[in-house]
Structures are given as C-alpha cells and as structure tokens.
C-alpha cells in the first residue's frame, strides 16, 4: 500500500467559488475578511483543549500513528543543510523504520529550493514528495519577481509542492490585495506543483487574523494553508489549527472545494499528533484524515511516532537509541 499523496493538478473550482466581487481591492477584501465571524480567543482555546482530552486507545491509536507518519512532511530547513543531510532524511522518509517494513513512508520531505534536486534524486519514484520552501522563506522579504524566481527554480528542480510564505507586513498593514496577488502569482508559478501558503501565525497574533488569512489564501487558490515556518515562536498550536480547520470546513461549504491544512513547528510527540488528528476528525471531518488534506511539518515528531508504533507492536517502550537521528 503506497502512502503516496495524490495530486490533482489545478484543483477545480466548485460552486460559488467566484470571489471576484470581493477580491478587487484592499477595501473590498477588507469588507469581506472583516465580515467573517469573529473568533473568541478563550472559547477557541477551551474547545481545542477539550478536544485534547479525548482518550485514544488500541486500534484507533494504531491507526492514528500510522496515519500521522503518512502525514509527516519530514523537514530540514537549516543554514547548515547539506546534500548528505538531505539524502539521509529522504532515505528515512521512504523507510522510517528499517526494522519494520510495514511502517509507512512519510508524505514528503521539505527542504530549501537548492536541495530539491538532491532530494528528488534520492526519492525517485518512491511516492514520497519533495516539498520546497520558497518566496524568500522564512521572512518573505524580497521583491515579487525574486519570490517567483525562487518558486520556479524549485519547481524546475522537481519540487512537487511549494511552501510559500505570505508577506505578513502587507497583511498586518491591511494591504490584503497585495498578499492576495502574490499568492495568485506564486500559484501560477507553481505550475502543476501544489501550493501551501504559510501564514506565520505567531506573527499574525490573533485568531481573527488567522481566520482572515485562511480565507484570503483559499480565495487566491492555495491548495494548503500552513501555520508556520518553524522559525518563529509560537509555531503551530492546537487552537490556531482549530481556526484553520474551521476555515477549510466553511470554505468547502461555501465553494465545494477542499483545502488542506498543515500545522508546522512545535509538534514533537505522538500524543500531540493524535490530538491534532482528533481535531481534524471532529472539526473538519473525516474527509481531511488523509495526507492529501492534512500534513504535519515536523522533524523530531517522526521518531516519537516510531517509538510509539514499536511500543504498540512489541508491548515494550523503546528509546531514542533504537531510531535513526536523521
């Protein structure tokens, strides 16, 4: 059974997905985005915490751990990344547990654009995708043509998925149209590659902003909306992800089109990952319980998932010495 996510190039528009009347100007976008229902911080956080108390046992847990592994975008985004590091990571993505061939592979590896070719070479036709961060990641502070060139470069090198960052400065100063146009342009530069749009929710600060950014990105054609670069604290949190899951759920209600969600950064344990899956299941619905529609941007999470998996199959608790550090 392949864990490969399927890509449907140029996801089709559903009914009611014509937003031209609200995307024409900053003012029109502002009217629309600020007309979305507000998010009460305390209520949203209480709901996320309540979902976190679900107790997942036995078969459900086995299922959840394998699903979580299949949803991992195994990530390295360091200045010190080398071809060797990326090859090792790619090998781990394809075969996370060399001692157990039944262990599924991850969804993707996620690297900087200049290392896409290396990753692609290692992954070949394994079905594990290459995702590249682009658009002057992580700050997004570059001219648009540089961001587009960055994107094209990654796609030409074989990236299946592009993780772009929005211009938070533009967003926070109310230049919604600029953010929107950039996403549209990057999506075009992606060609057949899938586009994930990173908000850097730690910089947007409020859940109202997260909801608005979610709709802005979805209207501009994002395939996925993603919380964070991993370079800013706080990165992904349960309540931020809750608000984004509500947004994709409501967007499908409105347009018929599904958009994926990717929390990234700060998810380190199986217990955390399972809380996210519970939330996906109960908020967006089981349709999103699929690597096509939900991903974890993570690095250390994978080893904890593997340790839990081993515990479930052997009945013993494992330790970090038994799993590779890549």
């Amino acid at each position, binding site marked *: 059974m392949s864990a490969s996510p399927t890509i449907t190039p140029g996801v089709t528009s559903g009914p009611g997905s014509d937003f031209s009347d609200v995307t024409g100007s900053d003012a029109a976008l502002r009217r629309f985005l600020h007309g979305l229902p507000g998010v*009460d*911080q*305390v*209520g949203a*956080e209480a709901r996320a915490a309540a979902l976190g108390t679900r107790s997942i046992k036995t078969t459900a847990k086995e299922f959840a751990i394998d699903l979580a592994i299949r949803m991992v975008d195994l990530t390295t985004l360091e200045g010190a990344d080398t071809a060797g590091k990326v090859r090792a990571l790619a090998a781990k993505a394809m075969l996370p547990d060399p001692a157990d061939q039944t262990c599924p592979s991850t969804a993707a590896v996620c690297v900087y654009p200049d290392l896409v070719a290396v990753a692609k070479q290692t992954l070949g036709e394994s079905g594990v995708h290459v995702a590249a961060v682009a658009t002057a990641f992580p700050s997004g502070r570059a001219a648009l043509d540089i961001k587009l060139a960055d994107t094209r470069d990654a796609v030409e090198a074989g990236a299946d998925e592009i993780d772009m960052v929005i211009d938070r400065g533009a967003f926070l100063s109310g230049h919604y149209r600029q953010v929107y146009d950039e996403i549209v342009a990057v999506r075009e530069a992606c060609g057949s590659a899938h586009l994930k749009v990173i908000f850097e929710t730690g910089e947007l*600060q*409020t*859940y109202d902003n997260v909801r608005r950014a979610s709709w802005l990105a979805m209207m501009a054609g994002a395939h996925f909306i993603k919380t964070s670069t991993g370079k800013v604290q706080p990165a992904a949190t349960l309540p931020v992800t809750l608000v984004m899951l509500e947004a994709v759920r409501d967007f499908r209600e409105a347009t018929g089109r599904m958009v994926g969600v990717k929390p990234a950064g700060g998810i380190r344990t199986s217990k955390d990952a399972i809380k996210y899956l519970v939330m996906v299941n109960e908020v967006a619905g089981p349709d999103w319980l699929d690597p096509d529609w939900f991903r974890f941007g993570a690095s250390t999470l994978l080893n904890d998932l593997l340790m839990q998996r081993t515990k479930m199959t052997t009945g013993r608790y494992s330790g970090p010495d038994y799993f590779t550090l890549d």
Partner: protein
Amino acid sequence: MSNRIDVRKTYKLYIGGAFPRSESGRSYEVLDPKGRFLANASLASRKDARDAVVAARKAFGGWSGRTSYNRAQVVYRIAEVLESRRAQLEQELRDSEGVSASKARDYVDLAVDRLVWYAGWADKLTQVVGNANPVAGPFFNLSTPEPSGVIAVIAPKGPLLGLVSVLAPVIVTGNTAVVVASEEHPLPAITLAEIMATADVPGGVVNILTGTRAELAPGLAAHMDVNGIDLTGIDDPALALSLEQAAADNLKRVRRPAAEDLLATPSLSRMTAFLETKTVWHPIGV
C-alpha cells in the same frame, strides 16, 4: 376677618402619578387622638391595589434604568421639598398623632435627614455591595446589585418617619413601590405623596394606598407581579404568617416584621432586602 371658611383638602390615593379617589367610591373617617374628625381618607380597594401594581410595573423599567446619580437627586429633591413644607407636615403630625410641637419638629427633621441619607446611597451601594470576582480563569467577572422590581410595602404606624424609613430604601435602588400607608394616620402619607409628585418622582415609582392592612395586604402578598414585600407594618403575627405564606407563591422577597429603632441610623439591610445580585462573565482575550 375670621369669617372666611377654610378650603379643606380632599385626601385621595396616589397611583401612577395621579391622585384618584378609590375606584370603590369608599372613604373612612380619620380621627385625631381625641376622637375628633380630621378628614375622610380614601378607603382603597383590592382593585386600587392591583391598579397600583400595574402602575408600579410600568414605571419600573424607566426608574431602574435611570442613572444612580439621577435617582439620588430625585430622592434628595423629596427631602428638599419636604423641608420646604415642614410646617404643614409638623401640623399634620400634631393633628393626627397628637405629638408635641417639638416632637413633630424632631420627626420631620429625622424624616428629611433620612431621605438625604438614603439619597446618597443611590450611587454608592453598588460599590459597597458589588464585587469584582477573581475567578480562576481568563474571565472578567463582576457582581452588581439590581433592584428586585415591584415591592409592596406595608408601612408602620408612624405616619412620616416610619413611612420615609421604609419607602426611601426601596426606591433609591431602582425598585418601584406600592405602599399601604399607616392605617391609623394616613393623612401625612398623602401629603408626602403630593411632595413626591412635585419632586420629580416619576409617576408610578411610588404609589400610596390608604385603607386597611387586612383588606390590602393579602392581595399584594399574593399578587404574582409583585417581586417583594416588606411586612414592617404588620403587627399581627397571624396576619404576618399568612402574608408570608401567600408571598411564597411567586417566591417574593419577604422582609419580616421585626422590632426596629427608627431613630437610629439605619443599616444597609432595608436596601439589600430588595436587591438581586447579578453576575456577568466575559472572556478576556484578543
């Protein structure tokens, strides 16, 4: 020349800001302590009491919705006008109760001062009996007193100080009142009503019935649109018991009759007896 004949006052009820006679067309003779005729007072009927409740209910929203500062000024204004008409009140006290001139002066002094004392509470009580509550969570939480609604007040015998002492604490917090005036000495109550009518007390905030406790109190105690009852003026324990039992039908707030020194500075209890504590929660977040 002493040939001029007095123009006497007709003592009527005070309902909804107007001074109607009893709908029953009845009156009763009010005598002085020596048994001499003073005047005919309206003998209010159960129907008059019901009309008074309707008037009080109608006035409640507006009166309770006023600012505390405004209510303070209105009650203070009653004191001002009472002071300006003290000669008349002193005379009425002497006539009806037979008290000495100096005693009558004392009573009026105390009544005026008591109104002033209660007037000042209007915009302070919330600060004294309200609370900000430090709940264990990200919530703003505030408890404030609110008036219970329409309060029936069975006033004590003392025609002026007694009436002021039970009425002011009820209305200053925003309740409206239906008062059964002293059955024995009803005339000063109606004069006080005239004072209130000219002291910017909105119609219906205070309604004064003259008549018998035995006829009026049971209907008020059982009335489902009355929120509280002050039984101070009931000195018959059997009647007090039956009134409290009737009040249970809609869970009126009941102030039982109890010995009280009207000459001493009051506590807060006459006000808090007819207040509800409302607690409002709101999350604190961005």
